[in-house]
Every structure is written in C-alpha cells, then in structure tokens.
C-alpha cells in the first residue's frame, strides 16, 4: 500500500505528517527532517518519497498549491482509470489552522530565493501545530490499519 499526504507544499505539514506516520519525527527540531522546507523539492510537482513505515507502507507527499481538493479528485480519478483502488493508494489531505498564511509566506520567500530551508516563522507555527498534526495522523493510521 502507498499513502500520499497532500498539502499546499510537499515539504511542510505534509512532510511532517509523513514522518509522524512513519514514527520517525525528530522531537525538537523540525529542520532535522530530510527535505523539510526545501521548496526546490516541491518545485516540479513530482511526489516526494518519504520512506516506509513498520508495515512496509510507502509514504509520499505532494504539494498542491491552493488546489488541494481539486487535485485530490484528479488523483483519485487517475487511480480509478488505472484500475487501482484505495487499497493501493490512499490520498490524505493535511489541513491545519493558519494554512493560507503558512503556504503564502513559504512560497513568497521561495520566490525571493529563500527556497532551501523553512522560514523560522513557518517552522515555529508548525512546531505549535505538532500536537494537532499528531492527533490527526494517529487517528488516520488507526483507521487505516483497523
């Protein structure tokens, strides 16, 4: 099975979600997550491979910009057209409070050349959202493996 976390960028909350899902999130410093905040990894639109969890489920993230719900439909349609099901690929949107500000800020700074790491303010806000994200992902994982 494969799990794809989608969010406005592939390298912020989606990547944190992927790492929580795999049980490998560094506690203190989100910047220790591989590719965290690196907008160069988000630039092409190719899903980012995060790793495998303990059951062998492959985890990916994808940046959707402001079109998260539209792209969810597209990916699910493509999955259906290719004769695959939710057993093969689960698409899970990550929605958290303050989202428009986070992605706008990260994208604006990326345009200005600060694309290699997460801006401090974005990292701090995401750090504050960690408990919320943990709950969301743990619930999702329990539901998935029930």
């Amino acid at each position, binding site marked *: 099975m494969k799990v794809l976390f989608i969010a406005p960028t592939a390298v912020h909350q989606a990547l944190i979600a992927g790492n929580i899902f795999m049980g490998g999130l560094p506690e203190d410093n989100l910047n220790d997550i591989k590719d965290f905040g690196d907008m160069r990894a988000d630039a092409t639109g190719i899903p980012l491979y995060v790793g495998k969890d303990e059951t062998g489920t492959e985890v990916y993230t994808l940046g959707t910009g402001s079109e998260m719900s*539209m792209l969810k439909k*597209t990916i699910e349609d493509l999955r259906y057209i290719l004769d695959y099901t939710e057993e093969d690929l689960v698409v899970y949107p990550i929605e958290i409070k303050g989202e428009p500000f986070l992605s706008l800020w990260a994208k604006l700074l990326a345009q200005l050349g600060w694309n290699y790491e997460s801006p401090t303010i974005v990292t701090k806000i995401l750090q504050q959202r960690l408990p919320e994200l943990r709950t969301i992902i743990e619930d999702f994982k329990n539901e998935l493996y029930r």
Partner: protein
Amino acid sequence: MIIIYHCFGGSHSSVTAAALHLGLLEKNRIPSAEELMAIPYYDKTVNGDFGHIRFMGVDEYNNRIYVLGKKALGDRCNNILVGISRILGASEKVIPVNTMTSVNWFMKLGGFGSRRLGIVWPGRNMVSYGTQKAFFDLVNLVEITRFKSMQVEEKAI
C-alpha cells in the same frame, strides 16, 4: 495507453484536441462554430468538473482518451499525473498533454466569459473564433501525441 489532454477549464482546447485525436473533427479543415459546439463537453463544463478526468473515447489503437480541467497548474500537472502513475507502477501507461500551449487570448477571454462569468454570448462566439484560429496548432499537437503514443507502445513491446 491513457492519453489525458489538459487545459485550464477542460472545456475548449483539451476537448478540441481530444476530438481531433478521436477523429470527431477533420484535421485538414477548420471546423465551424456549430461543429465545435457539437463536440461532447465543448463549452459545457461547470465548476464541479475542475479536477475530474473525463472520458472522451477510444482511438483506433485502443488508447483511451480523456480531458481534464486543471486550473492554473500549468506543466506541474504533467509531473503530477506522471508521478502518481509512477507510484502506482503504471508510468508508461499515461501520456499527459498540456494543450495550453495552443491557447490564444480569444480562447482565454471567451472561455472566461462563457464558463466563469456565465456570459454565454459573446463569450461562446469569441472562444469558438479563438479555437478556429488555434486549430492547426492543436492538430500539430495531437499528431505529435499520436506519434509519441506509438513510440511508447513500441518500446513496451
């Protein structure tokens, strides 16, 4: 093989390209506005259609032809479709084609007026005129795509 023609609204250039691919339009003659309007989905999509991959038909090589309205995703849409196919282990089965490269201002303004603002007249006339102006660019794009699909098919064999 699955060929997905995509443009902003999935309503004009992608639908015209898909119709050309399927032989619903003759490729050596500019179609009339009535012929364009007779194409399934042409200038008929609604907001809920954005993001849905809609089936248009099967070509003579058994390729399935689809259209998609992807809003402002641009070429990123190609990478997303190929990337998802790759995750599923089916990247060689999908050919995404961005038809926005053939879209002119008449199509953009007419399509926006007709589909987004609901001003069917004169939006529809403008978008039909624009499609006629872009017609041979679309013919060229479809021919390249057909050739590409044959190459991919050959490689697979």
